[in-house]
């Protein structure tokens, strides 16, 4: 079982299976269980079977196995001495502190696109190619929650599509493709921590840096040698009032109505869009001022998003084939929220009830029946 699981992980990692497989951690769990079982059976055999057996390779194998188990604990013990487990003594929080400055944060909510080997990415990544994954963080350096892979949605796959278009030389305006996705910074990571930490280095695949260098709307930001950071000159805040430098509302409206996420935006500079709904109370509720025009939300299209102002509930439309747009005729204070489905709360309550039922069954099964001594 262990051998089969290892073979599947290897083949899946090289894209040989032809079908997507479960993440490596999932496939390796049965292998770990099989190894544990084999170790247990081995110990049982050593205790019960070998004493009565003639001396041979089996006794030697048992000795080798015991030594291997002992040796395998050495790295664990070494890592446990200082409690750091080999983690670097610095991270990118300080390196990317400029993203928390008033100038940057005050310009509107944004996303950061991370590219690199999965081993050095500080976010949960989706595979883009051999030795290359991508992931997103919100408003700066990623937090612990961004290390868990969220369920994939069509919007996430648009990032990969945009990157492949640029990598294949089919556009020099990657910034305009990523702009409506709220991507303000693109970071190519070759190390898991700042360069001075001396941590594991994973070079980027050939072509990645050349692809970024060809883009007319990505401007390099020098911060740390472990990171190649580009600022997107065509970035649009994730909550914005859409505008072009040419102040052409018809062009904006036509682009918003387009079902193709890239055809309309590659020729349109939306960087003049202003941030709106600045106060984020939670990931699903925002308040603040909006301007007359089109309020844009760079989240996957859903009828559960609602923009409410003094003029009432704004009609929602799909934008660029994947996001949300709310035409507003009046400006003023407004609230944008996601109306969570009641089914979600029912599902949570149902799960809690199931757990309670399981606990009850376990407790009941441990009670000694009356009348037994």
């Amino acid at each position, binding site marked *: 079982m262990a*051998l089969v699981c*290892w*073979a599947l992980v*290897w083949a899946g990692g*090289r894209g040989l299976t032809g079908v997507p497989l479960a993440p490596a951690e999932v496939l390796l769990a049965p292998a770990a269980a099989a190894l544990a079982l084999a170790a247990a059976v081995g110990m049982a055999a050593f205790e019960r079977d070998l004493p009565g057996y003639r001396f041979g390779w089996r006794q030697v194998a048992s000795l080798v196995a015991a030594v291997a188990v002992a040796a395998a604990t050495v790295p664990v013990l070494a890592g446990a001495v200082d409690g750091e487990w080999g983690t670097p003594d610095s991270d990118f929080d300080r390196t990317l502190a400029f993203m928390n400055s008033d100038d940057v944060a005050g310009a509107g909510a944004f996303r950061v696109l991370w590219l690199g080997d999965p081993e050095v990415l500080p976010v949960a990544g989706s595979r*883009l*190619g*051999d*030795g*290359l994954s991508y992931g997103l963080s919100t408003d700066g350096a990623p937090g612990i929650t961004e290390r868990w892979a969220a369920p994939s949605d069509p919007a996430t796959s648009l990032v990969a599509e945009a990157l*492949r*278009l*640029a*990598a*294949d*030389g*089919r*556009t*020099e*305006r990657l910034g305009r*493709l990523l702009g409506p996705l709220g991507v303000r910074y693109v970071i190519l990571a070759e190390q898991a921590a700042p360069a001075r930490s001396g941590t594991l280095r994973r070079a*980027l*695949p*050939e*072509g*990645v840096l*050349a*692809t970024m*260098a*060809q883009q*007319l*709307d*990505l*401007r*390099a930001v020098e911060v740390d040698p472990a990171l190649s950071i580009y600022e997107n*000159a065509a970035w649009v805040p994730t909550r914005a009032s859409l505008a072009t430098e040419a102040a052409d509302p018809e062009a904006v409206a036509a682009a918003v109505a387009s079902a193709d996420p*890239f*055809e309309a935006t*590659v*020729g349109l500079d939306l960087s003049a869009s202003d941030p709106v709904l600045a106060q984020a109370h939670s990931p699903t509720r925002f308040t603040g001022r909006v301007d007359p025009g089109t309020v844009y939300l760079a989240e996957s299209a859903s009828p559960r998003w609602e923009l409410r102002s003094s003029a009432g509930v704004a009609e929602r439309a799909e934008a660029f084939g994947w996001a949300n747009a709310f035409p507003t005729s009046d400006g003023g204070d407004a609230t944008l929220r996601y109306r969570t489905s009641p089914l979600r709360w029912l599902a949570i309550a149902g799960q809690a009830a199931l757990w309670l039922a399981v606990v009850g069954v376990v407790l009941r099964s441990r009670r000694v029946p009356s009348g037994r001594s």
Partner: protein
Amino acid sequence: MSSRHLPVVVVLIAILAGLALVDVGDPAPPRFGTASAFAMPTADPASSLSSTWFCATGAASADNDSGLVLTVANRGDEARSGTVTWFPAGAAPVVLPVEVGPRQGVTLEADEALDASDVSAMVELDGGGVGVEHTVEVAGGSSVAPCASSASDHWYLANGTTARDATQVLALFNPFPDDAIVDIAFATDQGRDEPEALQGLPVAAGTTTRINVGEIVRRREVTATSVTTRSGRVVVDRLQRFDGSNGRSGISLALAAPAPAEVWTFPAGEYQEGLAERWHVYNPSDRDAVILLEAVPDAGEVPIALERTVSARDHLIIDAAETAPVPPGVGHSSTVRSINGVGVVAERELSGIAPSPRRGWSSMLGSPLASQGWLLAYGAGTEAVADALSVHNPGTEAVRFSVTALVGGQEVPAEGLSDVELGPAQRQELVLGDVLERSPVPLVVSADGPVVVERDLSPVSDPGISTTLGIPLS
């Protein structure tokens, strides 16, 4: 474990070991995408999301005689729209809309959009199947060259001169939002030169730095050039002018090459009394290059190729009159081929003085590619210009090609130029004025095998030689 299980375990372990060895033995580094050093300007596929062209040099002033004209040709079935951004020296860029109908061309003249002594341009369109050429027009002559379809961090030229009668200007165009830093080196007839003034030279974002080479590398009969960026990417043009004081006159515009190559093909060539033909080969690498010059005449026996060695970081000149690879007065194609794997850069110079009927100077990079489709955007359209096309078949099989004109939204076959057969290593020279009405239309050459196409737009009676390769279609 019983002996029955042993074979199974052995097989499984052998499979795992084999997989591990394959993994370790795989030397190919991972690669993402195909964006890499492009060999020459190429039209993007029609399915591209957008295409961008960079034209580094020219002027936009009635007072300055090197006016810049862009010709945009659309070979596709759909109209293309976008913008042209003019980058005048010392002023803010000017962005104007552009529309090109299907199977049509449009001309954009810089001095109709702005007034500037020096200007560069960038054309962005909402799809591929488009080629852009730029023309510099001066009193008494003009020169055409393709614009660049991509910027690069390396550029090379195998020829140029800062002789007494010559002015050589390099235009380094940076269309990106980041400053670029470049180093420039020359291989000259007096040795290698890396002027301090041209090391760490900044090219500000959205600007063009123009270098009069003769002010820094003085009185050199030949200068081969390497431009390398320390950061950023640029586009490099060479503008070579002669004042006629030494018999040479005219202007020659050339886009530099972004990378060395092992093969450079020139579909046309000729030398005779008064008209010199020279091949300039520059080796920018740190290893010697062994090259062959293969010339195939239109008539007569094919001569043995000339073998030469180009030292590392040096250049070599092969003069047709001195080496006589083919008889004088016989049209021919030629190929410079590196045979030891070291990439070089090759140009063919045509220099004509009296009594040659062709007078002027032109130096053109060869083609490192052969393609089944070529686009020629600029059309001369007057009786004063020769407008000849040379189509060369570098392969070992015969091909058939056709020439069509993009006229009024249609692709119109040129009379007598359909399904023309071309044998292996053969070339065909076509005088277009004989078969096309003199109208400035873009042309397309389509073949059933890879060919190389060159166009001669030299004046019929006035001085000047203007030759340019077509733009390969993806």
